């Protein structure tokens, strides 16, 4: 029978299943970071349990670390303690840890793929909701809570109920200036932030196939913002080409063997899904969020909502409180919204192609005088090195951006990269929740090119009419 990729991966990882109970599925790859793992290790210790397969878990430090000079210890005592705890826990358990100074360090969802730790057909979990990113490779990847991190450490499995499947097909070709970020924001705008709840989504269609691996990661990254358990893209030639030569691939197999195995995970041509959603790529425009949830999004040509036009009372109140928080009126054209901060980074958009896109826009321009801070934070040390080798850092610096060390940074603002109350930020990250980038801070989610353009003009600007220098 024809199967979709989720069904194939599920079946291949089933360790045990009893009617009426959750199934036990095997976990091939487990990523951990400093914020959501300490209590899991503590739990193991209290119960006298050991890490079952330490070589299948990889750790990084990303959420809490400074993006400025790292030659000195982390100033914040609690952040330092979290990082030291991770290091000690990994050492004790025999888990590889890419600490802050390690050359392979970076945001967990950037380094997994970059190192080839992420591979098609795997089950991947991490105590982090954006683990969905790894689905771009045709891996079943999702975020888990700390109790589940402890469960995976102890058993290398997860207890889970089989999900329903949803196909989101994006037909046609993307117009120039429209990116994978715009695709996924448009999808969330269409199906809503709970539209994917209970589902695993597979993205299909010509526009998805045409995306690079990095573009695909951006789409899968934000699947969680649509509420889905996981987002997947079947592996194809693009996937295999990206993976070859990555350091953590299986050593005992030839490229041809790996290709054959990986390609076999792809959904069968006439497989079915529990539900399908279809979008036309040609109709997608550059997206900008206006509110405090990723579903509160419109195109650069759009306006903030008019409350009287929202029929549902809960929705209307929610839009009203979002507009209040965002300090925006009703029916305001997006192109009239001015920002004073810009953040280019996060596991959504901090890879080399993202930085190239942003640099292309910034090249030869200057950051607007009305901008108080424009940050570029690469997703990993490797991305940073690559960008520097291409001279992108110089482009950013000359334009007036700050060029930082890798990490999560202002995506969640656990370190010093924080918005002040009332700041308005064009951000390439994934969440525009109240206070996400700092209490009272106002986040507008956009693509890297749109963020870069906003830095230059001081307001949201349609990238499709940009004057590239």
């Amino acid at each position, binding site marked *: 029978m024809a199967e979709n990729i989720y069904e194939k991966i599920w079946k291949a990882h089933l360790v045990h299943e009893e009617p*009426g109970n959750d199934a036990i599925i095997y976990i091939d790859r487990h990523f951990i970071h400093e*914020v959501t793992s300490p209590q899991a290790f503590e*739990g193991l210790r209290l119960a006298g349990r050991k890490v079952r397969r330490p070589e299948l878990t990889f750790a990084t430090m990303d959420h809490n670390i400074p993006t400025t000079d790292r030659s000195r210890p982390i100033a914040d005592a609690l952040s330092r303690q979290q990082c030291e*705890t991770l290091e000690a826990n990994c050492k004790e358990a025999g888990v590889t840890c890419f600490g802050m100074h390690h050359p392979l360090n970076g945001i967990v969802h950037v380094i997994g793929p970059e190192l080839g730790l992420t591979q098609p057909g795997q089950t991947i979990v991490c105590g982090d909701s954006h683990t969905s990113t790894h689905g771009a490779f045709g891996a079943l990847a999702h975020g888990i809570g700390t109790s589940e991190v402890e469960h995976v450490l102890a058993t290398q499995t997860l207890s889970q109920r089989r999900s329903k499947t949803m196909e989101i097909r994006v037909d046609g070709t993307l117009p120039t200036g429209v990116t994978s970020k715009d695709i996924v924001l448009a999808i969330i705008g269409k199906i809503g*932030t709970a539209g994917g709840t209970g589902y695993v989504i597979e993205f299909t269609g010509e526009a998805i196939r045409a995306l690079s691996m990095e573009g695909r990661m951006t789409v899968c990254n934000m699947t969680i913002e649509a509420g889905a358990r996981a987002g997947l893209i079947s592996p194809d030639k693009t996937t295999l080409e990206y993976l070859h030569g990555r350091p953590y691939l299986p050593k005992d197999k030839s490229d041809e063997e790996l290709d054959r195995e990986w390609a076999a995970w792809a959904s069968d041509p006439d497989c079915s899904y529990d539900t399908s959603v279809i979008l036309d790529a040609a109709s997608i425009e550059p997206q900008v969020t206006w509110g405090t949830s990723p*579903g509160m999004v419109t195109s650069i040509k759009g306006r903030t909502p008019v409350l009287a036009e929202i029929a549902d009372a809960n929705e209307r*109140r929610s839009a009203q409180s979002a507009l209040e928080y965002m300090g925006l009126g009703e029916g305001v054209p997006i192109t009239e919204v001015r920002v004073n901060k810009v953040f280019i980074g996060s596991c959504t958009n901090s890879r080399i192609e993202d930085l190239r896109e942003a640099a292309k826009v910034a090249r030869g321009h200057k950051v607007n005088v009305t901008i108080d801070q424009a940050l570029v934070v690469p997703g990993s040390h490797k991305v940073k090195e690559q960008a520097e080798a291409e001279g992108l850092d110089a482009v950013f610096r000359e334009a007036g951006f700050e060029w930082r060390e890798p990490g999560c940074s202002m995506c969640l603002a656990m370190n010093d990269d924080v918005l002040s109350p009332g700041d308005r930020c064009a951000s390439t990250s994934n969440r525009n929740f109240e206070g*996400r980038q700092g*209490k009272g801070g106002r986040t507008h989610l956009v693509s890297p090119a749109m963020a870069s353009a906003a830095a230059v003009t001081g307001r949201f600007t349609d990238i499709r009419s940009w004057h590239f220098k």
Partner: protein
Amino acid sequence: MNKTTQLTGIVAPLDALNVDTDQIIPKQFLKRIERTGYGRYLFFDWRFKDDGKTPDPDFEMNAARYRDASILLAKENFGCGSSREHAPWALDDYGFRAVLAPSFADIFFNNCINNSIVPVVLPEATIERLFAEVRATEGYRLDIDLPAQTLTTPSGEKIEFTLDSFLRERLINGWDQIGLTLRHEDKITAYEQARGV
């Protein structure tokens, strides 16, 4: 895990859609390495004024009548966003034992179960009605009977809900998931051997 069969308590309303875990507990409180002590940071940015100390009277839950609440009445897509288990830790530490909503985000739902917090899904119309009743009656309490899958309102009305039987059993018996899984350790080993992992 604690065993939970019957719960009874004051109900507090939280009238917002898509309450994300960043609101339930903001990131500045995630730096601790303990599992306990997060209750005072629950809904921090909503509960307190900018000084981080003065309770904000505009936040409905701050009213004296809800001070001893142990059941949270919420709206659609509660607990969306980050996977941080600090969210149920904070709810638990504050004193909430159950959350009622028309829908929950998946990861948060699992995290609740793993912390003996009962997530109760009810139709939107029922939730709306409960909001009205809670606001109309000071000291409004609900009794939750997990084995029977019912809520009882102060007027004696019984409202049914369903919770997956496996998860219900876990809550009732206080079974820890790791212990349950390790009963099948031989199967895990067999899987590893068969697949060469």
